[in-house]
């Protein structure tokens, strides 16, 4: 089974977000980058499926050279080779077009990615890729097994979960608890250095949505503390002051 796992290179969840260049660029100073947390789940399940059934895992990132450490980490966790599309992702459509172009060439049985990136939080790339490839796509998938050429999986729905079966190939946006995150071991880290990382140039995509400017939310006012022995006053404050009851 050939699996393509798409990973994002995103600021750590705890990173303080600020902007430079007249609020048109993220201030990367002091920001720690990580593999997107949801992508980590997709990668972990891919590694488990490969261990069970054999096959190969290619990891794909749309990003510039600064993504390479995260790609090497994915190789250390268990991917066999990697492709980086050498471009800064501009919007979901651009990213999906790049993924679809690589996927078409590779003939993958399964294309896994996180349900969303934690920078732009769009949650639409898996659907775009599925439609661009003319194959089914589902998200957010929290359980996945492969039996022959059929995927049996569960996805979260409002208030519960739904169980499905679909023929391969397909695209899945993943989330916990599909697998436990994997930490690279020393052998993985050593072998990752020698695994192939191919850098390709992006295919052309027309401008679909271009960034104008970033802004930060208005600063939060101080928390109004209510003494515990007067807890009941909270309800009247929520009614008369905050006007949310």
């Amino acid at each position, binding site marked *: 089974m050939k699996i393509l796992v798409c990973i994002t290179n995103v*600021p750590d*969840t705890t990173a303080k*977000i600020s*902007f430079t260049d007249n609020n048109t660029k993220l201030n990367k100073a002091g920001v720690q980058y990580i593999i997107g*947390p949801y992508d980590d789940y997709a990668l972990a399940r891919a590694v488990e499926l490969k261990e069970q059934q054999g096959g190969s895992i290619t990891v794909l990132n749309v990003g510039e050279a600064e993504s390479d450490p995260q790609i090497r980490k994915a190789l250390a966790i268990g991917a066999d080779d990697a492709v980086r599309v050498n471009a800064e992702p501009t*919007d*979901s*459509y651009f990213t999906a077009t790049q993924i679809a172009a690589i996927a078409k060439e590779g003939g993958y049985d399964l294309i896994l990615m996180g349900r969303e990136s*934690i*920078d*732009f*939080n*769009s949650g*639409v790339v898996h*659907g*775009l890729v*599925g*439609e*661009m490839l003319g194959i089914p*796509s*589902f998200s957010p998938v*929290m359980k996945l097994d492969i039996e022959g050429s059929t995927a*049996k999986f569960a996805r*979260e*729905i*409002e*208030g*519960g*979960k*739904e*169980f*499905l*079966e*679909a023929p391969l190939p397909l695209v899945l946006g993943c*989330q*916990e608890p599909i697998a436990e995150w994997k930490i690279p071991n020393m052998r993985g880290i050593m072998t990752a250095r020698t695994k192939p990382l191919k850098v390709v140039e992006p295919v052309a995509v027309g*401008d*679909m*949505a*271009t*960034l*104008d400017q*970033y*802004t*930060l*939310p208005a600063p*939060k*006012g101080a*928390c*109004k*503390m209510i003494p*515990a022995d007067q*807890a*009941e006053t*909270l*309800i009247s404050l*929520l009614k008369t002051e*905050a006007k*949310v*009851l």
Partner: protein
Amino acid sequence: MVLIFVELDNGSIKKTSLEAVAYGAAVAKASGTTATALAIGTADATELAKAGAYGATKVLHANAAELANENAMAYASVLAAAVKNENAEVVILPKSGLCDAMGARTAAKLGASIVSGVTELPDVSNGFKVTRSIYTGKAFATVDVKGSVKILGIKKNAIEAVEGTGSATVEAFTPALNNGDFVAKVTGQEKASGELSLTEADIIVSGGRGMKGPDNWQPLLDLASALGAATGCSKPVSDLDWRPHHEHIGQTGIKVAPNLYIACGISGAIQHLAGVNSSKVIVAINKDPEAPFFKAADYGIVGDVFDILPRLTKAVKDAK
């Protein structure tokens, strides 16, 4: 023309979809055009006509038997057909798992721009610019949407939906269905019945490890019931199986944007705050005065949740 997808829940239009209609109607008005809604699934015409009170002039209703399940691929085919049929230039969807999936596939079918997480009405004075939430609510980006068809996924509370007196005609819409959209089989479903949806709820009462165990949830449920609120929980609580995973709110769970979020015994880890920072008003109740939640909250009470929750429930009931 602006086309708005309205999501149904047991035959009723969801509240977030009425917001989407109001949003679409406002976009249509600014652009000097009209707003049409599209509903897929079983609902009666009286319910669908409600979209008229929020600014739609027409509701297209696709209700083939094959569309009984919320199949995002089939829904996307219906939406794309409606966009072509109505010559829609702007498509509005509420932000939800179903809408993200169908919006994405529709965008790829039509070669349309898609922008998700939109928080405000667009600026159409010079191009078509929308502001969207990014970095899990820690920032916003204004983007210039360039496609000839623009698909927007809007966040809850992007607009206040005020019910007016307008009316909409309801028309059957029967596009040809594509067999390829039905290759997946739904083999089962586990769904809590009668629960208020976290993404729809105006008030959420949520519990963390401070609730001390799965058997101690009743005081929280009582407050939620008195307030007509949905209930949520932090990640450790769902990891420990105290509460089901679909109640998990946070960076890796559900992101919510209610008018009021009450956090009970949740310390306020950054991953949890990322899931609630779009709430209008946040209340934190925690016995630890140093809990980070107090920095993110509008109102705070330092104290024992098991003492405070029943008193709040009584105060809510007394105030009714």
